[in-house]
């Protein structure tokens, strides 16, 4: 026999369920603009009767006992999440590289501003003017000044490229690793612990999940992380998931743990052999100390490429990206070979001590240390204008053949070698000085163009994934509004049902068994 007041339970459960729906809808609407919020929905299950708990089996039709709110869950697709995070690392890498290359472009680009190429052309024209009156001291002075401008602008290029590199190192160390990476990793670990406690006590901490996902998204932009969950059995009937984050080596497959539940490892940078390396401060796990090779995408990789990239000058396992070190070395090669060319031509009879350019500290000439030789600074006529040896009849020969030789050499094809003083050293480039410089500028421009395209493509894909995520997890005000109306109706209906039951019981109590009253 069915208990009289059992139906009231059904009615009250119905009311509670509708109330819960309305509350959740309200929560969703309130959080429509919250970053990282995943829409929540109520899980309802219908309560059934189970025969084996009753003393007597009930023949005939059985009825359910109403509805139960079994939980409040988030709608989230973890597969989309992992795709989003991989793509985030790629897009962030290209964005970082693009910014760094734009800084370099500001130094080397000469479309709007005069730079090294126009100073070289100017120097050649000053030599032409000197060839008209080779014995004139004032023209020699002007030619020397033009040469000085060339060396000074080489110094500026070198200095500014170093500054770009230092800025990148600063960004990587302070902004990316100290502020973003290490604090995020710590945050995720502490959230892991909080979630674990909540879940152990039976809650579903949706807000904490959202916070953690937001932090993991932020971390995914920095390095190619992989998120794995591991189930842990607490007691009979309760299994909680532990979240681990790690870096994976693409070639050997070894994983380097970054977060393991409540434990976390932080990163630092170290300078070794002129390169910047990433090292791990281990508090768990047994990874190798230097993990630079394991970071294959993300903002960190972008910065590392710009800082360590040597391009064609890379030997062994060095970074082959055309980063700041490549452009510095390219300018050094230019300065060294240019100086060697001019110094050799200035000494046609191999007399020695007739250098036009020297380094300011005695070491091999680079773009950073090239300057006019002290001898030339002391005497503008130090430049050898002619091969003819002075005689008593002709003490200052007025021929301009040596100057024309210099001009022809600067305009003509030459070999740019790794070591300008060694004729057996490998040739890095064969062409005129103008072609070398415009070629270098062209390489940089092409890199910028290429990375702009990569960045645009990566960002488009990222955006599509983000939209897909939103489509599943986002709050739609229209939908919530309709839900509100629907749940309000169901609430009204449940209240109505309650009224009907009340009337029925009232009938039984006050209306039954009264005959003829």
């Amino acid at each position, binding site marked *: 026999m069915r208990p009289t007041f059992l139906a009231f339970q059904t009615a009250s459960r119905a009311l509670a369920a509708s109330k819960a729906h309305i509350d959740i809808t309200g929560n969703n609407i309130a959080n*429509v*603009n919250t970053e990282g919020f995943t829409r929540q929905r109520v899980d309802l299950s219908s309560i059934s009767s189970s025969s084996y708990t009753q003393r007597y089996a009930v023949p005939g039709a059985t009825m359910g006992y109403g509805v139960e709110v079994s939980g409040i869950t988030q709608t989230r697709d973890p597969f989309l999440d992992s795709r989003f995070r991989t793509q985030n690392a790629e897009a962030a890498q290209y964005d970082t590289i693009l910014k760094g290359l734009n800084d370099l*472009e500001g130094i080397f*680009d*000469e*479309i*709007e501003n005069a730079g090294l*190429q*126009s100073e070289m*052309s100017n120097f*050649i*024209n000053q030599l*032409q*003017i000197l*060839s*008209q*009156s080779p*014995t*004139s001291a004032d023209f020699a002075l002007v030619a020397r000044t033009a040469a000085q401008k060339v060396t000074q602008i080489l110094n500026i290029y070198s200095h500014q490229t170093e500054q770009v590199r230092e800025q990148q190192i600063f960004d990587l160390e302070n902004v990316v690793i100290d502020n973003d990476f290490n604090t995020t990793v710590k945050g995720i670990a502490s959230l892991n612990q909080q979630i674990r406690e909540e879940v152990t006590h039976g809650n579903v901490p949706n807000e904490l999940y959202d916070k953690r996902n937001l932090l993991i998204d932020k971390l995914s932009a920095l390095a190619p992380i992989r998120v794995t969950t591991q189930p842990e059995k607490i007691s009979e009937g309760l299994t909680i998931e532990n979240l681990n984050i790690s870096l994976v080596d693409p070639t050997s497959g070894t994983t380097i743990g970054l977060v393991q539940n409540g434990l976390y490892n932080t990163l630092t940078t170290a300078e070794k052999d002129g390169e910047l390396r990433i090292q791990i401060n281990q508090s768990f796990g047994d990874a190798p100390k230097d993990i630079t090779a394991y970071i294959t995408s993300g903002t960190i990789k972008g910065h590392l490429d710009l800082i360590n990239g040597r391009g064609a000058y890379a030997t062994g396992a060095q970074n082959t990206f055309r980063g700041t070190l490549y452009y510095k070395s390219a300018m050094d090669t230019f300065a060294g070979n240019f100086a060697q060319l001019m110094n050799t031509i200035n000494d046609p009879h191999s007399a020695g001590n007739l250098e036009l350019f020297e380094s300011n500290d005695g070491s091999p000439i680079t773009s950073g240390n090239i300057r006019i030789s002290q001898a030339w600074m002391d005497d503008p006529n130090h430049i050898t204008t002619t*091969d*003819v040896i002075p005689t*008593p*009849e*002709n*003490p*200052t*020969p*007025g*021929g301009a*053949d*040596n100057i*024309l*030789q210099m001009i*022809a*050499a600067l*305009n003509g094809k030459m070999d740019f070698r790794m070591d300008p003083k060694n004729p057996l050293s490998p040739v890095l480039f064969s062409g005129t000085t*103008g072609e070398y410089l*415009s*070629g270098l*500028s*062209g390489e*940089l*421009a*092409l890199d*910028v*163009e290429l990375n702009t395209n990569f960045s645009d493509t990566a960002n488009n894909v990222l955006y599509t994934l*983000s*939209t897909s995520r*939103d*489509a*599943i997890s*986002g709050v*739609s*005000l*229209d*939908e919530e*509004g*309709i839900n*509100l*109306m629907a749940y309000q109706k169901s609430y009204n209906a449940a209240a109505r049902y309650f009224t009907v039951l009340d009337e029925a019981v009232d009938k039984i109590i006050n209306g039954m068994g009264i005959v003829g009253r």
Partner: protein
Amino acid sequence: MRITNRMITSKYVRSLNQISSDLNRLNNKVTSGRAFTKASENTSAAIRAYQLRRDMSKSEGFMANIQHAETTLRNSESSIMHIQELVQNAQTKIIQGVNGTQSEGERKIIATELRNIQDQMLQTLNGSSSDMYYFGGTNTTEKPFTLDSATGKLMYNGNLLDDPALDSAALLADSRFVDIGLNVRVDASGVIDNTSVFKYSIPGLQITGYGTEEINGEDVSSNLYDLIGRMATELESGTYDSDMANKLLGKLQETSPKVVHALTDVGAKTSYLEFITDRLETKEFNDQERQMEIEAADPAETIIYFKSQEAAYNAALQMGTKIIQPSIFDYMN
């Protein structure tokens, strides 16, 4: 697929950003007048632009050299013309002096005038401007023509013109030169290929002549200065030999066309320079046109694009307000 509010707003913001950055880029194009402001916007055009700039700078250098050569040639020309006048003057005087009716006193006067002409010729041969001597070849700082202290004979750059061992070929080839764009070639030992540069100075040796010729058993200098001097000596000497004088006059008349030849040389060089200047000017004009094609933005075209982007931006702004605001809550009661 569900469409959520976040999707609509983020897509809208993205689109507006794209249109704004296009507007910014076009605005830049119009205000700077350049088709591209950084090489990365159009790399191949940038490389061509750099090449063109280098070319134009080289042309500027050649033009400066040509002007310098022209000035020097003009000054040389006027000096050589003066020498021509002097030689003609000398010839007239000598013809007068050789005339049999002249007395010894009159001959002595003519001799003095001839010596005068000699001095003027020496001065003109040593002509200079801005401390650079015209006719000394690459010797620009010392007087090219001097007199031997022992014999008083003319020396060119320290070489006696009468000397049979005179290296005339080397002295004639010694001239100042500049690069006017004929592709200067230098061989491995530093010797310049003479056909690839432009020589713009006349070696004085070419004007005066050199060497000696035997006349009546005597070695007579062939160069104009010493020849005129020998003539003067003959006229003022006590043992005047009219046969010798006539032979000397004949030699002078044979030698004086050298000066005319030098003038022709200058004329030929000058007209060659005019020809090269013409070509360089045409090249400069063409290069400038090409530079405009590569580097300059067409302002009319750019402004039209800008206006149409502006219209697109306004349309996007208007439409955006219509889709962001309304939702079902506006219609619920």
